[in-house]
Each structure stands twice: as C-alpha cells, then as structure tokens.
C-alpha cells in the first residue's frame, strides 16, 4: 500500500503554484500595452489603407466615364470617408486607454518578492527531505510563509490588478490620472492607484508597491486629491536630501516626518491642501483626549501658520480664514484646546519649513500670487453655470479653485457635486510623452508615518 500523500508537500506545491500564478498575472498585466500597441498599429494601418483607397476612388471618379459609374465611385468615396472618421475615433479611444495605462516598474520588485518566497518554499522542502528540519518546524515555517508574507502579497496584488483595471477602464472617473498629474507637478514620480477602503485592507505589514500610492475607494473624488500632497512630502523626505534631512531634524520630537510632509504639501498646494486635510480628515481634539488628537492640533497649527505666511489677503486669505474658523469652531464644540501646548516650537518649525522649502529648486510656493494666476480664472469659470472654458493651467490651480468654490456654498450638496463634476470636466490630461510612456519612479519610501499617508511602503 503506497504511503499516504504528504500533506505538507501538497500545501507547498500549492503555494508554489500560487506564487508562480502571481508572477504570470503580473507579466500579463504588462502585456496590456502590447495588446494595445497591436490595436493601435492595426488602427493606424487601416487608416493609411483607407486614405489610399479614398484617393484611388476619388481619382477614379474624376476619370470615370458614364454617369452611373461616376455616381457609384462618388458614393464609395463618401462611405470611405465615413469609415475613416470611425477609425479615427477608434484610434483616439485607444490612445485614451493607452494614456491612462501605467507601466509597472514594480514588476521587478514583484518578481523579487515572489522569487524570495519560492526560494523559501524550496528550502523548507529540501530541509524536510534532508532531515534538517522536523515536520513540526516545517509546518510552523509553512504557516508563517502562508499566513503572513503570502497573504499580504496576494492581497497587495489583488489590489494592484483591481486598481490597474479600474484605471485602465476609466471607472475611477479619471481621478487617478488627475492625481498623477498633481504628483507630477509636485515633482514626485509617484502614481495613484484605486484601492479598497483603508479599513478593509490588510492591517498587518505595510504592502509594498514601490511608487504606487493608494487612492482609497470610495474617495475617488476631486476633493480628496490634494491629500496626496502629503505623500509627495513623504517621498521628498525619503529622498534624504540635505534639505529634507535638515528639516526632519528640526521637527518637534515624536512627529516622525508627518509635519514635514504637511509643510511640504501646504507649501506646494496652498489652501487646497488645508481644506482637504483639515476639513475632510483631521480629527478635532476633544477635552481630555488621549495622545492622537494633540498631534492633529499640531498639524493643523503648522498648516495654518504656513498658509498665513503664504498670503493673508484676497480669496487666498479668505479660504484660509474659513478653514481656520471651521477648525477652531469644531475644536471648541468638542471642548478641546485650539492652541497646541508646544505652540512656540511649532511656530519655529513652520517658519523653518518655509525658509527650507524656499530653497528646494524643484518646488514652487503656492502663495497668494500664484493662487491669483492659476486659480482665480478657474474659480470664475466654476461659478458660472455654463459648461466648458479653457483648461486650467495646473492641477493645483484647479483644485484650489474647486475648493474655494465649494466653500462658497459648502452646505449645498447639489452645488458642491456640480462644482466637483465641472472641475473634473475642465481638466484634460496633458501628456508630453508618447502613449504608455508613464513610468512610476523607483523611490524608496521611509518607514510609514502617521497621518493620511496611504503610500504602499516597503516592509
């Protein structure tokens, strides 16, 4: 009677198969571009051939003898023209898809992670065979591999593939592309990817997808996009430049980079960041609150102080004023302290952040002057009922205008929705490179910081 099948071997084989499947799926994900390329080339070729056919039909019609034959050629020429228009439309749609798609520079990283797990599987198998590892220890090693690393890997890649699909098909309402454009303006090579809500995502172990940052569902709206300024700030910190290191060192103790990220986002995005961060996300400190909330009060204080230094007058100052009043009122309602205990220290940090960021050559301060240049015109467009208008110069201008418009009638949901929709419509992606040329960078992130940072970070 043959010995019963070894269950551990079966499980290890199964796990190995799963990991190899992940590798294949990721490889297949990259063939999206190939398939689209074939489609694009076919479209271009069909368009060329149609052009030739139309010319031939036109020439033949000129030389044709006999009315009927002439009319038939004329009619053919018109039909060919229609077909050419349809093909042009198909090609434009293909180009749209191609623009929305991103290359996964992380494929190598994914393969490395998979390779590492496969190697561990082989090690367990070999160690059991050679007797170096007892069955009990081998099962424990398998459990560890399966329940933690593989589970996280699978979750990550379900997210990744789901996110890619949502991006590719435009079901994220093109918010990912808008976010990409913003991140590009902020000088980072990060890219956004739609993902599951934060609470449903695996809590243990920070998932690593290199330079992709999560756009949590259902926050695929224009209002949350400024929050990615924070991730851009974290990415800047992680580059470890002397200026970033200097500012990190100046941070009040225990802030772990989040104040630097806030300062960066505020400096680069202006009131739009404050509006999104303070009005949508921050938890107001309450009387007798435990540790978490004072940190939020410190963050709000730094953000508002930097903003006041960037501009006090006009609409810029008004937006800041409304956000500030709103925050202070909420803090009062909860019986919390408006002034953080370490106010002076925070003020010094904010002032230092401003002078440091002024020296970052790749970054431009979004002050009241830039607000006027990039957001004022867009705000006027958003205020009028008619659709359309020239596209905004920058995404940050668009986001600032949208938030300013929202604050004009913040209690009117229908109006706020209409503003969000119109703002999205005003934005048209501008891509300098050819189709599918967008590659996320390979920035290495620092350990996860407290805050909104939803970055996929390495473990």
């Amino acid at each position, binding site marked *: 009677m043959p010995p019963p099948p070894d269950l551990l071997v079966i499980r290890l084989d199964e796990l190995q198969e799963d990991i190899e499947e992940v590798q294949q799926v990721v490889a297949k994900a990259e063939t999206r571009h190939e398939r689209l390329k074939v489609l694009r080339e076919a479209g271009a070729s069909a368009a060329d051939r149609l052009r030739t056919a139309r010319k031939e039909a036109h020439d033949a019609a000129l030389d044709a003898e006999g009315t009927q034959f002439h009319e038939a050629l004329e009619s053919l020429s018109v039909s060919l023209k229609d077909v050419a228009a349809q093909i042009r439309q198909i090609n434009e749609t293909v180009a749209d898809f191609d623009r929305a798609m991103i290359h996964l520079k992380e494929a190598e990283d994914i393969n490395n992670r998979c390779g590492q797990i496969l190697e561990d599987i082989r090690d367990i198998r070999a160690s059991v065979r050679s007797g170096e590892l007892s069955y009990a220890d081998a099962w424990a090693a398998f459990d560890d591999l399966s329940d933690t690393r593989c589970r996280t890997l699978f979750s990550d890649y379900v997210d990744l593939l789901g996110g890619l699909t949502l991006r590719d098909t435009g079901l994220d309402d093109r918010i990912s592309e808008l976010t990409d454009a913003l991140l590009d303006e902020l000088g980072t090579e990060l890219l956004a990817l739609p993902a599951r809500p934060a609470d449903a995502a695996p809590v243990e172990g920070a998932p690593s997808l290199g330079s992709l940052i999560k756009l949590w569902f259902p926050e695929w709206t224009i209002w949350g996009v400024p929050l990615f300024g924070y991730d851009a700030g974290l990415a800047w910190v992680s580059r470890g430049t002397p200026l970033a290191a200097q500012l990190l060192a100046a941070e009040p103790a225990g802030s772990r980079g989040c104040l630097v990220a806030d300062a960066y986002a505020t400096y680069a995005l202006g009131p739009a960041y404050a509006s999104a961060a303070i009005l949508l996300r921050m938890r107001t400190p309450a009387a007798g609150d435990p540790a978490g909330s004072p940190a939020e009060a410190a963050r709000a204080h730094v953000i508002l102080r930097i903003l006041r230094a960037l501009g006090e*007058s*006009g609409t810029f100052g008004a937006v800041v*004023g*409304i956000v500030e009043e709103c925050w202070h009122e909420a803090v009062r309602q909860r019986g919390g302290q408006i002034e953080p205990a370490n106010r002076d220290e925070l003020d010094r940090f904010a002032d230092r952040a401003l002078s440091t960021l002024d020296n970052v050559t790749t970054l431009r301060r979004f002050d*009241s*002057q830039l607000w006027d240049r990039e957001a004022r015109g867009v705000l006027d467009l958003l205020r009028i009922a008619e659709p359309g208008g020239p596209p905004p110069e920058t995404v940050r201008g668009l986001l600032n205008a949208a938030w300013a418009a929202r*604050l004009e009638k913040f209690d009117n949901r229908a109006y706020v929705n209409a503003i969000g929709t119109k703002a999205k419509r005003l934005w048209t992606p501008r891509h300098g490179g050819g189709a599918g040329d967008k590659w996320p960078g390979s920035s290495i992130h620092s350990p996860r910081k407290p805050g909104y940072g939803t970055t996929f970070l390495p473990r």
Partner: protein
Amino acid sequence: MSESTGANAGFLTQVRQEIAEMEQIEAALHREHGLGTTSAQVRDEFAVLLRERTRELTELVDAGAADWARLDQLRAGRLAAVKAAALGVLEGILLRAHPLYADVTVAAERVLDDLVDRTGIRRDVLLSVAGAERFERTVGIIRMRFPDVTVWGLPILAHELGHMVAGTLPAPGQSSARPVEEYVSTEAELEAAITGADPTQARHRLHELFADVYATYALGPAYPLAVLTLRARPDRFEDATATHPSWTRRMWTMVEAIRELSVLVASPLVGQAYRRDANVLVLPRWFAVHGERLLDERAQRLVRRQAKALVALLDRNAPPRLRYDGAFDADGLGQRLAAGGDESAAPGAVLNAAWRWRTANPQADPETTRRFSAVAVTSLRTVTA
C-alpha cells in the same frame, strides 16, 4: 451810473479793482491748459461763480452810494473764497508741472478720477495743495497735503472726496434727492435728542463719519490704516471737537463698516475676506496704538448702527463697483511692488497693497519705504485714466 469825486471815487475804484481781479482770475483760468483732468463742467462752474461775483460788485457800483459795509461783507463772505479757490487751482497747476510734485499730483488725480467714476457722480474735482488735506466747497477743490510726495497720504484724499459725495450723490431715479444729507440731518437730530449733543455739532460729526465710511467702503483698509498711522493723535484718541468725532469713534465706525460689507456680500468667501480685513488687519493695528479696549455697549451699539446705515446708503445709491474688491490679492501686489515690479492695477488696489505692505513691514527702513512709495506712485500715474 453816477460818478462823483471824493469819497465815492475811492469806493468805486476799489470795487472796480475787485471786478478787474475777478476778470483776471477768469482769464488766468481760461488761459491755463494745465488744469490736469479737470473737466469742462468744473471750468464752467468756476466761470459762473466769477460772473456771479462780478454781478454783485457791479450792483454796488450801480447803487451809486459808497456802501463800504456791503463791500466788506462781499469781500469777506464771497470774494475771498473765490480768490482762495482760484489761487488753490493755480497752485495745483504749478505744482503739477513741478518735477518734484508732478508724479504724486498725477497719481492723486488718478485716484480721485477713479473714485469719482466708481461713485457715479459724474463730476470731476479740482486738486490743489494746502498744509493739510481738506475739501473746499466753493468749486469742489480737494487739497492734498504739501509737501507730501509719497503714496502714503493718498488714501486720505478719498475722505475729502467723501464730503463732496455727501452733497452730490443722488438717489436712484431721483437726481435731485440727496440721501446722505437727508440721513445726516435726521440722524443728527435723533442723536441730539438721545445724547443731548448740539444738533449742529452732531451733523458735522456725522458728515465726518460718512466721509470716513465712504473712504473705507471705496478703498478698503488702506484708508483706516493711513489715517490712523499718519493723522490720528494718540494723546487725543477720546477727544471729539465741534466738527470731528473722537478718533476712537471714527476708528470703530470704520471697523464696523468693513464688517458690514461682509454681511452685504453673497459669497461667504468674499465675506470672509472683508471680515479678515476688519478683524485681522485694521482692528489689531488700532489696538496696537490705542490699547485693546472695547467701547462700552451703548457706544458700540450706536457705532454699529450708524456704520451699518452709512454703508447701506452707499450700497443703495452708488454703483456696486464703488465697493472695494475684498477678493483681490493685495498682499501679492504689495510684494511685486516691493520688488520694484512694473505693475498695472486699479488705484484702490495699489493703495491697499501699499498700506498692507507697510503694515506688515513696520521695521522697513525709510529708504525701503520711500522706494516702495516711488514704485507705487509710478504705478498709479501710469494707470489708464
């Protein structure tokens, strides 16, 4: 006309001399092509005034008697004002041609022209100089302060213009109505009845408050900041005179007027901008020089009620564009002017930018402040009229 010798001859000679002087003034003004932006309407008004005085003098001659008392009366009450006004105009013209004062005079004209246009009163003003800013009713002359050649005092001209606006601003569809004058009279009587104040003094003071509110309404924080910094006397903050309310009352009225603007506008954003101007810019400046003392409740109620009514008068009777643009980024413009930029902006925006910059940079050295002023004046004088 009966001519006689002796005492009568002396009288007639003097009357004729006065007539000749009136004609001389008319000729001088007629010849002068440097009247700046003065409109034909003002010239005509001057001509009518001179002709009226000449007629009054001619009547004296025709009467035949040596009525010295009447001549003295005419000289003091009627002729002196015309001569002073003409002299003021000619001084202004001369100053306008002077290299040192030309820039600021043209800049001041731009400011006033812009205000007149935005107020919709269709009447230009004459500009001249004096020891201090003031408005002369005879032919509507606004005198700027000699020898100030900087941008800093220009917002105060808006207050002087406010005195003219009070007497000329009509009600919509009623060109002969003078709603400001009507309000001032009614309110002065009410105030006198409530507080026991002299009604005439109450009227004078309300006129001053209207001029303050007008300047604040049209120019924004530039006016309260300018008048507080350059004119208010810290040792007399609480003192009212027969014609002027106390500085405390004036400053609170201006603060309340800006707050009232935030209530009038539909957009919460613009409302917030006005509130910040009042609470974050002007009030702290007032507290800094006066101390953080509030008015008592009764005085505060009176100030708030009057500020509200005065703002409502302008809101109802003047075009909406008279109200200064709270949403404009004056700080940004201030930074560009400080950098020496060649900026083209509305006169009110330049004045606001200037005063916001000066308030934010109290430690700026005199040379920097002077340089800023020069750039701002240049910017004002290049504004298209």
